[in-house]
């Protein structure tokens, strides 16, 4: 790991100033994606700007028809939040299944969505629930936010401040985890929300999170596991590694979709 300058701003403005102050500056939240790649010298930012001391970024609020989760909320915080558990239990359950206890106590929702790892869980939740990503300057719908593996529309000096989730009438997440890393091999969030039924898949595709239109249409007609059991997704463009090849991943998408629908009750 190379030397870097560490910034601990106490306001969003200070954070933005620090971010703009150095060309190689990177934001750090929980650090669970950034630090491992820095240790391997795959990333070598000149400056790290921590959001840990910026007030107001770790709140969870119930806004009636939506729940807003501050960007610096850890996965454990989301999993343990009475608000999230009460209004969107599927989101709390999903957060409770991320990585392991250490990861959940440090990793944050903001860091996860900004990183857009194709095997992260949050992108599926955001897309299926029709979430809005709130930044220091704008709001971006989830469908527009996740633009492919590690790609988002965020500007270099833009800070995610919160994620707003509309409350669905029912939702559930089913994940097949990589046995070693516990990242999603195929994670499917099914949500019946204000915009209808959405099915979003993470972990499986090289392009990151995607929706399965055929399943959404089938579920709109009949919200049952049987409705999606016969719908397969193509293995073209699916990720392939030692734990799961493309065909297996494609198969698991259908199985996890079915199980998510079942879990919606």
């Amino acid at each position, binding site marked *: *790991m*190379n030397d870097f300058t560490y910034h601990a701003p106490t306001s969003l403005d200070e954070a933005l100033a620090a971010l703009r102050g150095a060309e190689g500056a990177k934001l750090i939240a929980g650090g669970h994606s950034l630090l491992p790649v820095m240790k*391997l010298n795959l990333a070598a930012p000149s400056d790290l700007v921590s959001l840990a001391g910026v007030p107001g970024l770790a709140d969870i609020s119930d806004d009636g028809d939506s729940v807003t989760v501050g960007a610096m909320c850890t996965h454990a915080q989301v999993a343990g939040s009475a608000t999230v558990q009460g209004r969107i239990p599927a989101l709390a359950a999903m957060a409770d299944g991320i990585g392991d206890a250490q990861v959940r106590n440090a990793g944050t929702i903001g860091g996860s969505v900004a990183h857009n790892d194709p095997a992260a869980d949050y992108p599926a939740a955001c897309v299926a629930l029709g979430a809005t990503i709130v930044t220091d300057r704008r709001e971006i719908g989830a469908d527009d936010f996740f633009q492919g593996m590690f790609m988002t529309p965020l500007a270099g000096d833009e800070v995610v401040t919160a994620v707003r989730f509309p409350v669905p009438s029912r939702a559930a997440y089913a994940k*097949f985890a*990589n*046995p*070693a*890393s516990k*990242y999603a091999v195929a994670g499917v969030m099914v949500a019946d929300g204000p915009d209808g039924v959405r099915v979003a898949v993470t972990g499986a595709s090289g392009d990151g999170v995607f929706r399965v239109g055929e399943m959404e249409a089938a579920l709109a007609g009949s919200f049952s596991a049987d409705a999606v059991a016969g719908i397969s997704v193509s293995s073209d463009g699916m990720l392939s*590694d*030692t*734990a*799961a*090849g493309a065909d*297996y991943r494609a*198969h*698991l998408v259908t*199985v996890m979709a079915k199980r998510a629908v079942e879990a919606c009750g």
Partner: protein
Amino acid sequence: MSANGSGIGASVKRKEDQRFLTGRGRYTDDINLPGQLYGYILRSPVAHANIGGIDTSAAMAAPGVHAVFTGKDMEGVGSIPTGWLIHSKDGSPMVEPPHPALAIGKVRYAGDCVAIVVAETKRQAKAAANLVDVDYQELPAVASIEAAEADGAAQVFDEAPGNVCYDWEVGDKGATDAAFEGAAHVVSIDVVNNRLVPNAIEPRAAIANFDPATDEYTLYTTSQNPHLIRLLLGAFVLGLPEHKLRIIAPDVGGGFGSKIPHYAEEAILTWTAGQLGRPVKWTCERIDAFKSDTHGRDHISTAKLALDADGKFLGLHVSTKANLGAYLSTFATCVPTYLYGILFAGPYTTPAVYCEVKSFFTNTVPVDALRGAGRPEATYLLERLVDKAAVELGMDRVEIRRQNFIREFPYQTPVALQYDQGDYDATLDLALDASDWAGFEARRAEAAARGKCRGIGISTFIEACGIAPSAVVGSLGARAGLYESGSVRVHPTGSVSVFTGTHSHGQGHETTFAQIVSDMLGVDFAAVDVVHGDSAKIPFGMGTYGSRSLAVGGTAIYLAVEKVIEKGKKIAAHLLEASVEDIEFENGSFTVAGTDRSTSLGDVALTAYVPHNYPEGLEPGLEETAFYDPLNFTFPAGTHVAEVEVDPETGEVDVVAVTGADDVGRIINPMIVAGQLHGGLAHGIGQALLEDCIYQDDGQLATGSYLDYTMPRAADLPSFNINHNTTLCTHNPLGAKGVGEVGSIGIPPAVINAVIDALRPLGVNDMTMPATSQRVWQAIQQAQG
């Protein structure tokens, strides 16, 4: 011997846990010496290449750098040796190419040591290593057995044509072939034994120091056998006499075999410390541990079993190809031969057994012992084959085993070993009962109602442990004896220090050995401390591996205690004015037989050190050393039963029950034995279902971190149902056999047999380890067409 609260047979809490659980363990990386520098080992990023040249000038100029050494600098230093000479079928010795500690002219695996960069700090050394410019002229790599034996394959060593190290055999081929000719049935099987990464929780580390005032070198290293390292490093690599080379293996955080070998880094560090006259420290990073700690297993085998019409085994023929990696590690050559081929009688009376093993060099990390070392590979093959025979002959899986069991002891196998004692029916019956084998079909039906395929599998096995009788292994090619030493020092006020040449890196020797000595001498358990891991403190030792510590090292201690008692009787006889023949020793007291006249061990010890009133001609002091060379291997045996549920939609395998019925000989501390069994079972289930070391064709490790290499976790394992039926080893006074490797030897075939049993209704008849969910799903897809 008498059981007391902390004696033999008591589940005493471990002495070592106080320091381990409170963070006060003292591991190699915890040690820092004044004036210490840090070494960073630069490793080859490619699997096979000629080195055109190495430019170290930029690294030398980097901040804090004291030295950069490459293979050229170490030319003239001895090759890293291997400990066992194997002869091929034709009588020729194995090909034994040199292994320079730092690569000279060529690198042979991704991870091969290329240079050491020494700097004031670890970070400076690592940063400067990035500036070493190595001209790698890449060559095609052979990353698997198949690639190594292919026509026109790249040559790892010019002196090993076809990449073959040796082509070995054991058993009577003629008799075995004849057995097949008259057989009513022949059952064949092909199996792969998957390559594993050992993954001790403490990465390897070393600190070397040279004292110019005494010409003495000291090496702190993460080793299971410090004296063995002194022998190999001193006598073979650096040419240092024993009295000028001290090896200290302090607390060591797990070994599993991967800390047996003498590693190149130990030689590099020690040599470098001598060059610089300052201590040099190195700690391996986990990412480098994956590509430099010796790996385990990696066999491809084909085997056939001849049976008569009733299912009696007539003959067994095994052909195995083994991957040795890029260089011959310390025990590399004997693991797939003398720790493998001679196990193929198993617990069965098969009259004719033949095993041939061809071993190959490849451009991969060297392969050496890993928990079980050869015996898991043999047991897996045999127990898969026996299960397959039962299915093909339409016989019951239990009965085919039972009707072939050995029941008369001692039993001479057709492959060299002579079993001294055992009761295989007893462990089988115990396991069947404890696992409710008879009630399984109801559980299968209940699981089916939940959409799960449930299966049950069994493995009946023996091990050869307590390694090993020196004369026997010497005749088979071992270059060292495999005896052990133990010293017992009774101090003037009666407390006791015990010195053992074995090494504890998780086994609990400090407790177990103290229990033996406390029990035998009748002194308080707290008054006995065990010292190990320092060649300057321990007379000699061969270390810990092959489940030998109790059977061999414990026996040496036992014999030393007996000598102490004998001497104590002489002193007591003098004090009690009786004849030595009349003195009896029990519970810490020397008594004149048939009287109430006695004196305590404490009084005798004090007298030994303050010999004012003392037997004429007897040396003062109360300290004895014994060397024990075992008369035979020990033969732990048992039956393991695994029950699994497979999710046919995803292929996930859930191990829902594991039952062990084991005969490990005398149990000193039941809690420690349970811990050893649990750890071994976790390890074995890991191999069966999760762990897989995969190389890409170019020799890059595809599973080189915990992102891709799956270790078993608590959530992957059921609560283990452990049972014992003990028969005592007949040739050591403790009756000890060994327990450290039982789980990793016995359980893998039981798990895979259970998976196949679960999937047979779906048309699946074979399964390769590890039975990952993807592999199981693919097998179901294939079977369903």
